């Protein structure tokens, strides 16, 4: 019974915690941005704009229903897994200890720095490092076969809604949690070690100010059918919702493009940048004709395991063949 309470609490919390993506006011902000975009930019009128935003074909598609289910099931799984995951504080403590053994570093060596400066640098540094690490991990999720088998779950969505962020395989969730723990640990430990107790976080409603800004300016529209595009120059710096929708496109030209989360700079630097296109013309997903089972919970949760098993088996056979050939050559 307790676990049920905790589960309902966790689900409810997602909507009322300003640190979470689907905090009710972020959803509301995204709605307003979408509405103004359609009304003023696309000149759709009130009724048509609202009709487009709340299109039941999107929100009640098989794909979206799969998102909702996986959201609930993942909450249960993460509730059970998270106590076993290493915390950011444990990693931070190890880093903090390690810094003591580096001879050219001294604890509190910049402790005299003005607190407000330290706080601004800390807040920005964490947001940038967090975003960069998201880019790197995301890139690996696409490039490595085993990781792609997991990440495919997310890309199998054929319609996008804000809830698609939760369409994530739990093993991928573990990787994301570790990524987040490591980036937090690096930032916290290094700043506290160098600057002492003057380190603080600039927050709005308890969330990192940059996280707040990212969310209030429509982060939820990244996973949606509203293809908001930025000016070209801005799309080199920040990723527009339409750019992320391109990332979900089935077209070959769009493969392995726009891995970034908030900043487009990483894609630009590492050669995976792609400007936005008309979202309405994109086909989303990973295969042209998704079959009946694409969005069922069983295939979403278990297909990755089958695929990983196949990949490993293939590699093992290749390895065996390689060694056998070598032996034969030696004998000859």
């Amino acid at each position: 019974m307790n676990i049920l309470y905790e589960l309902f609490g966790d689900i409810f919390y997602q909507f009322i915690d300003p640190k979470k993506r689907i905090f009710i006011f972020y959803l509301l902000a995204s709605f307003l941005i979408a509405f103004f975009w359609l009304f003023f930019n696309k000149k759709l009128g009130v009724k048509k704009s609202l009709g487009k935003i709340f299109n039941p074909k999107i929100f009640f598609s098989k794909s979206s229903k799969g998102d909702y289910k996986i959201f609930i099931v993942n909450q249960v799984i993460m509730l059970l897994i998270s106590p076993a995951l290493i915390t950011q504080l444990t990693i931070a403590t190890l880093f903090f200890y390690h810094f003591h053994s580096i001879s050219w570093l001294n604890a509190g060596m910049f402790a005299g720095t003005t607190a407000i400066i330290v706080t601004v640098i800390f807040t920005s540094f964490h947001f940038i490092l967090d975003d960069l690490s998201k880019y790197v991990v995301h890139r690996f999720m696409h490039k490595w076969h085993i990781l792609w088998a997991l990440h495919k779950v997310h890309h199998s969505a054929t319609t996008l809604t804000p809830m698609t962020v939760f369409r994530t395989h739990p093993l991928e969730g573990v990787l994301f949690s570790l990524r987040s723990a490591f980036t937090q640990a690096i930032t916290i430990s290094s700043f506290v070690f160098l600057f002492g107790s003057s380190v603080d976080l600039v927050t709005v409603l308890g969330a990192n100010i940059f996280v707040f800004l990212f969310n209030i300016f429509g982060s939820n529209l990244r996973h949606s059918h509203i293809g908001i595009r930025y000016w070209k120059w801005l799309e080199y710096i920040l990723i527009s919702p339409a750019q992320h929708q391109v990332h979900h496109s089935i077209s070959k030209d769009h493969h392995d493009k726009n891995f970034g989360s908030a900043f487009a700079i990483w894609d630009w630097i590492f050669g995976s940048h792609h400007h936005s296109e008309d979202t309405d013309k994109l086909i989303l997903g990973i295969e042209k004709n998704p079959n009946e089972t694409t969005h069922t919970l069983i295939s979403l949760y278990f297909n990755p395991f089958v695929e990983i098993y196949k990949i490993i088996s293939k590699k093992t056979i290749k390895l065996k063949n390689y060694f056998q050939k070598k032996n034969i050559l030696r004998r000859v």
Partner: protein
Amino acid sequence: MKKILILIVALFVTISFTQSSFAGDHDVYGPWPVTVKGYSGDKTDSTSYSGQIARHALHDSLKSLSSKGDLVEMMAYFDGSDKNKAIIAPASKDDFLFKQTLMNDLSKGKNLSGKTYKGIINGWPGGMTGPEVLEFMIKKAADSPKGYDVATGYNYPQLISKFAMGAIFYNQAVDNYLDEKLAADNKPNGKPYKDGAAYTGKEHVWDEAFGYWGAAAHALTLSAEDNYNVAKKKDFYAADYNKDGVVDLKKEYTFAHAYYASSFDKGGKTNYLETITHAFLDGRKLISNANGENLTDDQRTKLFAYADVIATNWEKVIAEAVFKYAGEVYEDMIKLETDPSDKNVATYAKHWGEAKGFALALQCGKNNLGETSVKLNRMMGHGPVLMNSSQVVGVDSMGNYVKDQSLEWDDYKLHMLKIQKLMIDRFDIQARSHDQLADMTDLAAKLGSSDSAEND
């Protein structure tokens, strides 16, 4: 009508008096009724722990003397004296007046050396027993100006006081009175403690343990802050429970570890003073209620449960102190890196002395701490790492310190952090004063949980 009114008022007065006396019974340690069978004396209160209070006064006085260089005088308080010595500390200050000024006002013929833990003290060089370590420290203190030896970094008033509190009060209470003396055949409740005494065996055993704890009898009627201010001689009103204009050291003052408990509790994260004092009260009530009969197995099981609460929390109080001073040592070391003034070095030595004293004290409980002791002693070392990269590593046959190349300064700093972690891991302490990782904990909380199954 008038009669009825008088009757109602009388009834209210009676009820309110009854209630207040219940409250008194509940919250104050003593007076307890005399339950000894066949007692023929005229005493009506069986409470008795004046010997323990005398030892608190001996300890406080010894601490005060250990910065004055008079070996004979120090030994008089450590070994006891035939003379009726003055209570040097605690002494009256301004309007904070004490009832007693001489040792014999508390109890005659008491000493500290006879009650010091007799086992080997592994954390101190020389392989000495508890009393030997204290005597050794006292002699070294007499040779050091103001009890502070610059060459080794030893601050003897701190070392002596913090170690003595553990080796005497803590050890006597948890390893003797609340341990083997609670056995059925040891000081039974069915007999007076000694012939003609107004208290039974178990009543006195329990009282003596309470005396060593050091809380004022009315500690539970006060907040942690009040108890702390009583020890600091800052709140006479809170101390003078019976309102006779003086503070009775036997009942109304906060000593030793009870004081440290109050210092941690006033931060609001812990409740050591109340928890321990409450367990003492509950245990004493149980013994009094046995009415001079031998305790049943069931009663003794309950008593052991109270004793366990006391011992566990008392150990935590000392572990909190180790944690706090290890944190202060770490902070002092950072300060010294940019300002190695004599004053800062002295502060470092003072805090190190407190950390070391409490660390030695922690190992005087009833349980062998095993690996925790080994780690704690190894990380803290025999002496503080000094600015010239030297450290005491032992004592030669003549009782002189042997110094050698020390650990790296940065490694030693790290040891202080690891000692803090060790105290958390082993004793689950919560007050965590001067927590060097607190800033990281706060920031981690602000950034929020790192668990997320979300695809940006």
